């Protein structure tokens, strides 16, 4: 078993903290919450300190923050139905663009690997795709595919492929077609309750999802003409659930992150626990097996809402919780 060591507890947010996101260089961290602010933390002489508080962007709860791949922009999704884009051109972070269009709470925001596409999703059941060019954002698609509230959107690590998770218990995969329309190319059915979050592995061929049904599921992509002989339709990949991790979590699982450096999977759970899973060394690629390598009881004193691995420092993990804290952890074997 490995262990998760608490490095620092970051206080400052008033009320619950919804989300944390690492800067692509791994040297700073953004968090957001109920207090409508975004806080940017940086490591100075081995201590994490708050560098900036962005308070003027949103009228209501900030649900999620996301750094652009270049690290120059932050996108924030809010329950005020807008998404704000912050940049540092004037020296300090400023909100210079507000994306309007969703009818209700925006739940999640994600940048594509190129930074040229942005996706948002909302309680209004829609997924939006925005094209960014020279600080102008145009709506490229409004996808009304989910039957309910959409909780999370995440881009594939290498392709312009988007995944979304919803209150309708499904995960959907979207791609652009020949007519520059974004269409759903796969629906991942297996969870029996709300899918709260999802995360691709470093290859993008696998996806981990977590749900209100207290399970984590691992999905494998089978491309047309795959070696395993899995049949595909319309020249599109199929995604098959190849592993279900049940019996570990005692409450809904709100977030999941698959580390691109170490392959470790961290989960944020309503039972206040952070758990870490790793694929077994003798695992069969088509029917993989995963083991829990670490469980941290009372990681927070209330629901853990978000976990994210540092993209540069192996084993460094950030978490956010209803208890108002952001925590920095280090995993070691």
């Amino acid at each position: 078993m490995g262990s998760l060591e608490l490095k620092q507890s970051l206080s400052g947010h008033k009320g619950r903290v919804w989300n944390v996101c690492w800067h692509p260089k791994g040297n700073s961290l953004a968090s957001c919450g109920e207090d409508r602010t975004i806080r940017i933390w940086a490591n100075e002489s081995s201590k994490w300190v708050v560098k900036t508080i962005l308070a003027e962007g949103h009228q209501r709860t900030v649900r999620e923050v996301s750094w652009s791949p270049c690290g120059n922009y932050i996108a924030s999704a809010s329950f005020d139905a807008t998404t704000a884009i912050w940049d540092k051109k004037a020296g300090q972070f400023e909100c210079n663009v507000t994306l309007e269009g969703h009818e209700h709470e925006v739940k999640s925001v994600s940048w594509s690997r190129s930074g040229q596409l942005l996706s948002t999703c909302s309680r209004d059941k829609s997924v939006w795709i925005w094209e960014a060019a020279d600080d102008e954002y145009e709506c490229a698609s409004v996808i009304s595919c989910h039957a309910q509230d959409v909780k999370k959107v995440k881009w594939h690590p290498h392709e312009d492929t988007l995944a979304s998770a919803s209150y309708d218990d499904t995960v959907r995969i979207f791609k652009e077609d020949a007519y520059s329309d974004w269409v759903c190319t796969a629906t991942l059915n297996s969870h029996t309750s709300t899918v709260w979050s999802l995360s691709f592995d470093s290859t993008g061929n696998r996806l981990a999802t977590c749900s209100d049904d207290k399970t984590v599921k691992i999905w494998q992509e089978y491309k047309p003409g795959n070696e395993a002989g899995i049949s595909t339709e319309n020249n599109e990949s199929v995604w098959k659930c190849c592993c279900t991790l049940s019996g570990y979590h005692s409450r809904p699982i709100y977030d999941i992150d698959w580390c691109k450096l170490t392959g470790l999977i961290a989960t944020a759970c309503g039972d206040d626990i952070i758990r870490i899973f790793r694929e077994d060394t003798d695992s069969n690629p088509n029917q993989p097996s995963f083991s829990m390598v670490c469980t941290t009881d009372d990681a927070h004193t209330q629901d853990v809402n978000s976990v994210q691995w540092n993209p540069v420092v192996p084993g460094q993990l950030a978490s956010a919780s209803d208890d108002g804290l952001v925590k920095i952890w280090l995993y070691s074997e």
Partner: protein
Amino acid sequence: MASRFSGALQLTDLDDFITPSLECIKPIEIPKSKAKTGAKIKIQEDGAYVELNESGTSEKLQKVEITLADCLACSGCITSAESVLVTQQSQEELLRVLQENQNFRENGKQEEARFIVVSLSVQPVLSLAERYGLDPESATRKLAGHFRQLGADMILDMTAADDFSLLESAREFIERYKSSQDNVKGQIPMLASSCPGWVCYAEKTHGNFILPYISVTKSPQQVMGSLVKYHLTKYKGLPPERVYHISVMPCYDKKLEASREDFYNELKQTRDVDCVITSIELENMLISQGVSLNDVESGEIDRPFGAYNKEQSDKILWGHQGSGSGGYAHFIFQYAAYHLFQEANTTVEFKNLRNPDFKEAVLEKDGKILLRFAIANGFKNIQNLVQKLKRGKSPYHYVEVMACPSGCLNGGAQIRPQDGLQPRELAAKLETVYHSLPLSKPEENCVTLSLYTTWLEGEHSDKSAAFLHTQYHEIEKMNTALAIKW
């Protein structure tokens, strides 16, 4: 089943907990008879609610009904319970009225029967023609035959109404353009008004910011409504409420349009269009009767107001230059080029911008851009247009806005593609057929021109304004306790 409303309307909905939406504010009217306490209510096997009186007798309770018109007045939801909401505008209701009429006639109560008029718009005709492998003219005649068999008294084509809408829109544009030159605000860009999905979305979501820009010209459906209920009736010697007017349309949103209070005559208790029936519903009616349109006996299109012109009096279905949504941008562009800048016979070329549903055309003279028009189809392009307007970055003078991608030929209630064809491929196919139709030139349509005289007392008259123009209403966002947000 996929929704037949346009994307713009589907998004305005939220039904995660109860239907109709949790933000439904329909004030439920309970007719109070006398104060009673302790009543018992029983639910029957068929789901009906029955109240048991103290005397032991029982009385069936009325169901609360929410009408489409109620929904239009509310910012809460719109389409969450399609099946509940569209009952008064369904194929079942249509068949019920037709049956009732037949019963009156069979029982010698001729005077109680209604005069049934059907107006055919061009997009559903093309959709059905494609579905049954017919040419457009034959499909029109077959549909006429079908409706006549069902008991309709008169079948009309809508070219005159299309041309009224185009002419009035073009004249409105000229006035707006001139006013904007005099620095009157809220005139330009003029935004098209014939798509009810877009209008409804604008009223509910962007309200008074956007409404001044929307053309006040009625859509062809509602022009047809006025023509049938307030001119045809005079000519036939019937009161408007005795006529039952059915329009055949390419989308469900048209049902919402027909249900607007603006198109209801309270005094006479009659709507300009009583029932909207869509392509897909017509196909369903044919299927449920076990009939193929190919086998239906052809009928004639009635011409109570004469023919388009003498030379082509045999033509019954007309198209227009430009988009398959009626060619608004194209016609207004040419009209404005001539009337504002004396440029006759300009060629109008709409070029794709970011995507095939956003097109632009410019009129340039001596290196100066005089007119910049756009066609914006589908919800994403509506979004980009509205956001541009809000930021003061819209360069356009006129925008033809339609809520469905590819416009009305791909309306939400057009028949779905068969054999794995993509909706866009089908829309492109229908567009080719649309452009092969004889072209109507609104300024040369004898029917429209004569109606300006015989019905409207001339162009720019009060009657023209009353019958050809309408208005829009902001719907304020509700802040009810139930909809509280944190």
